[in-house]
């Protein structure tokens, strides 16, 4: 009957972001918010665990005021309660700040048996948060998990690394980061969406976390962002006869020394 906490981030949907052709800056004006993709897997995994074995799932998020748009979305995906921290510091927060805020919040609302995160956020993909939070809370961290189960006080996880797969077990509280392949996040049914309004949400004010102002300042600061535009030859063969196209392509590959 684990008590689980899932940390998630409300990000901009990168599909809506456009690159301005003149100066390659990013136009995010039409970008809608979403719960970061891998965090959805984390929420789903926690919800599945608890739906199977009993227990409870809380969600926790730290962001700017836009984070309020995420609450019902998160609750419709399984958690029984969501804690949220909305603060301007989130605008420029780096992983160092984020982890400190989350760890402080967890000390306040915890303890938890299992803390889950996605392997990285869909916008920055720093892949730091889970390990940082674990370090700050002096908990072990098992990252890049593709399979998870809980029995009594023991957490069993399969990690998928580059060349190998590790089966690990941990006794006691642990921080887990999950891969997208661990599950397929549910499409919330209508009842789950409507049920979300009946579930509680609680704001945690950053002032109540006892962090000094300098702790909320990032150590890694973004200085410039430019859209990545690839310059390629863009020579396209589209004759009506496939054989003609193939002949032309073969000729190009030969010229390039590739066949």
């Amino acid at each position, binding site marked *: 009957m684990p008590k689980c906490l899932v940390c998630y981030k409300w990000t901009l949907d*990168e599909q809506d*972001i456009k*690159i301005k052709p003149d100066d390659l800056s990013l136009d995010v004006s039409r970008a809608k918010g979403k719960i970061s993709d891998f965090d959805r897997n984390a929420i789903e995994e926690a919800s599945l665990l608890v739906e199977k074995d009993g227990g409870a799932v809380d969600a926790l998020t730290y962001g700017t005021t836009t984070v309020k748009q995420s609450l019902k979305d998160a609750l419709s995906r399984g958690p029984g309660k969501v804690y949220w921290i909305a603060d301007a510091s989130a605008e420029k927060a780096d*992983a*160092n700040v984020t*982890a400190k805020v989350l760890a402080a919040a967890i000390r306040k609302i915890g303890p938890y048996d299992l803390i889950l995160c996605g392997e990285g956020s*869909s*916008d920055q*993909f*720093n892949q*730091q*948060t*889970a*390990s*940082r939070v674990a*370090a700050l809370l002096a908990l*072990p*961290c*098992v*990252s*890049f998990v593709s399979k998870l189960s809980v029995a009594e006080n023991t957490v069993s996880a399969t*990690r*998928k*690394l*580059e*060349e*190998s*797969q*590790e*089966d*690990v*077990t941990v*006794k*006691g509280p642990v921080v887990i980061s999950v891969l*997208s*392949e661990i599950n397929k996040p549910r499409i919330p049914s209508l009842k789950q969406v409507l049920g979300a309004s009946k579930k509680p949400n609680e704001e945690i004010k950053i002032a109540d976390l006892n962090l000094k102002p300098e702790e909320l300042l990032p*150590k*890694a600061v*973004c*200085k*410039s*962002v430019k859209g*990545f535009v*690839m310059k*390629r*030859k*863009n020579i*396209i063969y*589209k004759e009506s006869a*496939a*054989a003609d*196209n*193939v*002949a032309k*392509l*073969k000729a*190009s*590959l030969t010229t*390039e020394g*590739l066949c």
Partner: protein
Amino acid sequence: MPGIYIFSEDVALAKQLLTPALELKKSLNQPVTVLAVSEPDAKELSTLGADKVVILQSPSKWVDGFAEAIYKQFNDAKASILLVGGTLCGKGIASYVAAKLDAGMVTDATVLKVADGGLLATRVLYAGLALCEEQVALPAVLTIHARTFLAPSAAATPSVIETVAVEADTRVTVGKVTATGDSGVDITAAQKLVAVGRGFRKKEDLKLAEDLAAALKAELACTRGVAEDEHWLPIARYVGISGQTVKPDLYLAVGLSGQVQHMVGCRGSKVIVAINTDEHAPIFESADYGLVGDLYVVLPLLTAALRK
């Protein structure tokens, strides 16, 4: 004394990290120390110009368990920069150390230079849509992906080698470890790749791509959907934001649309070719050469033409 520290459990990657480390040594005039996980690794690493190599001797093979020892080494020396090989384990270790140091960390930095009393590093944002330059104060932790740099050539002076005993982290028990996928297939080492997407209707149809790859002497790669959703090919062949990054001479993409999350893994390729039935597929914007056509018709023709 401030210094530049390097760690990777992957000795080939650790060697590559020496290149940016030695550059930083020139700019900052600080010594370079490599942290190694075994004596053989240490010996290999000691010939490439580092000032010191420290062997972290642990009874456990749990790589993540080295994090505390690495933190202690770095912190005791009051070092300024930690470069960690960007493997999955490496990222976990780097994050742990960064948290304990209360330091900034850049993941998968591709370019780094000294600036404004810290480091200016380039990294990817929004699954590859954009590049960002991040200024990080010292002490700083950075992870660097494999093959971002080439290993340096042999140095005149060998490094001093020391050994330090490390306590195992007993909170995590490592049970079975299984080697995965096509052990032996490393698509990142291939000069040519034929990448398949879901334009192929079923697993058996991949034979068309295999024949083409054989004719080109290429390896097979794929999109996330083919590996993770359809399970037609092992994860080791998946190219993309959370898969492999490849830089072959030829990347031939067949039946894949070319979304940013995929292209970020292959856009370093020398020549990109696309075959797709949809003229408006984004892949054509990323291609040097493109062929608009039905892969079921085109691939056999192309394979035959290449065999001549």
